[in-house]
C-alpha cells in the first residue's frame, strides 16, 4: 500500500473511469489508497493540483495545457498519462432558439454545417430587428466546450466574439440559466444536457461527435514533477483507471457503473440519466425523441484512453485561433509534451511500436488537421483572432 492519494474531480459522467477505479476496487487492487474529493469549480481543481493539495485530478484537457504554458494562471507543468474520455459533450438550445434554427435550416438537422448556417441566419435576423445578441454558456475559458462551440458557429459564419455572447457558467447552473432565459444555449458534458431535456427547457441540437469525430475531453492530470518522483504510483493509477475503463465499456456492466456514478457523493443524479450517456442513447427533445450514437462518449474503447499529442496540438491551435496563446514552436512542443503516451504504454507494459495510429480529429469543416503546420491550418479558417 502506498501513502493515501487525494484526487479531485468535478461531478460529471466523464469522471467515470476514475470514480469506478476507486469505488469498484480497481485502485485498491493496485495497492492504492485513494480518496476522491468532489470539487465545485475547475479553478479549484487546477489550483489544488498545482499547489499539491491534490496528487492527481480529473481535469479539462485544455486546462492541463494552459497550466503548462502558464496561460491565465501560474505556470505549473502538468503530465497527462491517461485520457478519461473522448467526446461526451453536447450543445443544448432553448425551445425558442431550437424553433428559430429549425425554421431557417436547409438540410439535415444533425449536420453541423446546416445548423451553423441556420444559426447565422437567426443571428442576422435578430440584428436587423434590434434584438439582443444570443448568449451561449460554456464551462471555462480553457475548455473543450468553448472551442467546440466556437468551431461550430464560426463554420457557419458566426463570429463567436462579435455576433453572440459566450459566457462561462458552472455546469450545475447551466440548466437554471437556460430555463430563466439567462442563456439561449450551452455546451456542457453529461448529465446536464439530459437534465435540461428532461425538464423540458432544452433540445439537444448536437452531440460533439457531430462536430469532431474524435476529441479528447478530460484527462487524468498530475504535476510533471510528481510524475517523476512517483513513477510507480502513477503507473498503478493508470492501470487502475484502464481496468475501470474496460469494465465500464462492457455493456453488461453499464447498469452497475451507472449506479456507482449516480451516488450522491459522486455525481448525484439518477442512475438512468448516467446510463443514457454511457450507452450513447439520449433523449434529445422534451417530446421524448431518442437519438443514438456510437461515438457519444468513449471511455476506453477505440484506444480512447491513450494520450495522443496530436490532440494536444489541436487544442493548442484553438488557443492560438482565438487569441489565448501566441503561436510558437516552443509553445506547441510544450503543449504536446503534456500528453504522455509513453507513461501510458509503460504502465500497461505495451510496446510503443505496436500501438496503432490513433484516429484523426475528423472536424466537419476545414482541412484535415496538420500539427506540423498550425499557421497554415488556421489560415484556412475565415473567422478567428490570432495574436499579431
Amino acid at each position, binding site marked *: 500500500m502506498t501513502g493515501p492519494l487525494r484526487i479531485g474531480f468535478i461531478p460529471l459522467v466523464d469522471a467515470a473511469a476514475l470514480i469506478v477505479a476507486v469505488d469498484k476496487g480497481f485502485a485498491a487492487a493496485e495497492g492504492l489508497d485513494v480518496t476522491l474529493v468532489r470539487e*465545485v*469549480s*475547475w*479553478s*479549484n481543481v487546477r*489550483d*489544488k493540483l*498545482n*499547489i499539491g*493539495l491534490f496528487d492527481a485530478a480529473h481535469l479539462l484537457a485544455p486546462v492541463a495545457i494552459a497550466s503548462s504554458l502558464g496561460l*491565465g*494562471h*501560474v*505556470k505549473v507543468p502538468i503530465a497527462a498519462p491517461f485520457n478519461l474520455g473522448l467526446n461526451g459533450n453536447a450543445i443544448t438550445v432553448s425551445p425558442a432558439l431550437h424553433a428559430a434554427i429549425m425554421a431557417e435550416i436547409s438540410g439535415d438537422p444533425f449536420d453541423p454545417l446546416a445548423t451553423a448556417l441556420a444559426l447565422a441566419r437567426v443571428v442576422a435576423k435578430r440584428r436587423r430587428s434590434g434584438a439582443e445578441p444570443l448568449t451561449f454558456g460554456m*464551462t*471555462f*475559458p480553457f475548455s473543450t466546450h468553448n472551442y467546440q462551440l466556437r468551431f461550430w458557429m464560426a463554420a457557419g459564419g458566426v463570429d463567436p*466574439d462579435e455576433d453572440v455572447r459566450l*459566457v*462561462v*457558467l*458552472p*455546469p*450545475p*447552473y447551466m440548466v437554471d*440559466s437556460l430555463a*430563466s432565459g*439567462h442563456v439561449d444555449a450551452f455546451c456542457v458534458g453529461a448529465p446536464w444536457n439530459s437534465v435540461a431535456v428532461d425538464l423540458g427547457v432544452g433540445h439537444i441540437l448536437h452531440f460533439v461527435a457531430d462536430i469532431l469525430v474524435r476529441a479528447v475531453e478530460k484527462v487524468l492530470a498530475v504535476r510533471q514533477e510528481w510524475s517523476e518522483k512517483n513513477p510507480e504510483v502513477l503507473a498503478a493509477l493508470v492501470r487502475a483507471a484502464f481496468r475501470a475503463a474496460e469494465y465500464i465499456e462492457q455493456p453488461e456492466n453499464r447498469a452497475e457503473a451507472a449506479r456507482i456514478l449516480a451516488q450522491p457523493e459522486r455525481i448525484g443524479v439518477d442512475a438512468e440519466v448516467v446510463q443514457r450517456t454511457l450507452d450513447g442513447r439520449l433523449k434529445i427533445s422534451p417530446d421524448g425523441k431518442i437519438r443514438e450514437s456510437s461515438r457519444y462518449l468513449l471511455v476506453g474503447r477505440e484506444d480512447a484512453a491513450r494520450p495522443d499529442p496530436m490532440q494536444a496540438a489541436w487544442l493548442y491551435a484553438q488557443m492560438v485561433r482565438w*487569441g*489565448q496563446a501566441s503561436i510558437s514552436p516552443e509553445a506547441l512542443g510544450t503543449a504536446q509534451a503534456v500528453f504522455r503516451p509513453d507513461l501510458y504504454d509503460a504502465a500497461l507494459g505495451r510496446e510503443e511500436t505496436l500501438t496503432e495510429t490513433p484516429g484523426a480529429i475528423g472536424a466537419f469543416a476545414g482541412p484535415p488537421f496538420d500539427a506540423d503546420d498550425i499557421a497554415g491550418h488556421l489560415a484556412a479558417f475565415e473567422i478567428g*483572432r490570432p495574436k499579431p
Partner: protein
Amino acid sequence: MGAESSPKIVIVDESPIRAAVLEEGLREAGFTGVVHISEMQSLLARIYTLDPDVILIDLENPSRDVLEQMFQVSRAVRRPIAMFVDQSDAASIQASVDAGVSAYIVDGLKKERIKPILDLCISRFNAFAKLQDELDRTKSALEDRKVIDRAKGILMKLKGLTEDEAYVLLRSTAMREKKKIGEIAQSILTASEMLK
C-alpha cells in the same frame, strides 16, 4: 488610509454571515469601499459595473470559474485583471486555498497594498470556519440531548424505570457496545417507531 486611496473591494460570497464578518474586518482595517455580492446571476455584469480593484471569492462557490473569464480578451473587459498570486507567492496561494478563499486583483495595484487585505481575509475565513465547526458541534450535542430524553421516556414507560435508571441503562449499554449514548438512544427511537 484615506477613503480616496482605499481600493474598492468586492466580496463574492453566498454566505451572508461570513461576508459580514469579512466586511467588518476590512472596514476596521480602514478599507472603506467594500461591496458584497450574494446573487450569482449576471455576476460578471455586476462586477464590471462596480469596477473593483480587488475581488474576493470563497472557494465553495462554483462561480469562481465565471471570474476566470475576466482574464480573457473580450469586449466586455474594461481593465485587465490578473490573479493576485504570482509565481513567487506559493505560500500565499497555499494559505488562501487552505482557508477557502481566492483573490483577484486589477492589474497594476501594488502587491504591498494587497498583502494586508489577503492576510485579513485568510484569518477571517479561518476564524469563520472554526466558528462554524463549533456551531455544528453544539447543534449536534443539542440534537443528541433531545434524542436521549425521548429514549429515556420510552424506557421509563416500557420497563417501569425511573429517569435515573433509564439513563444508567442507556449509558451502560453504550459503554458495553462501544457506541455513543446518542447512537443507542437513536436506535431505541428507531426500534420503537418500527414496533408501533
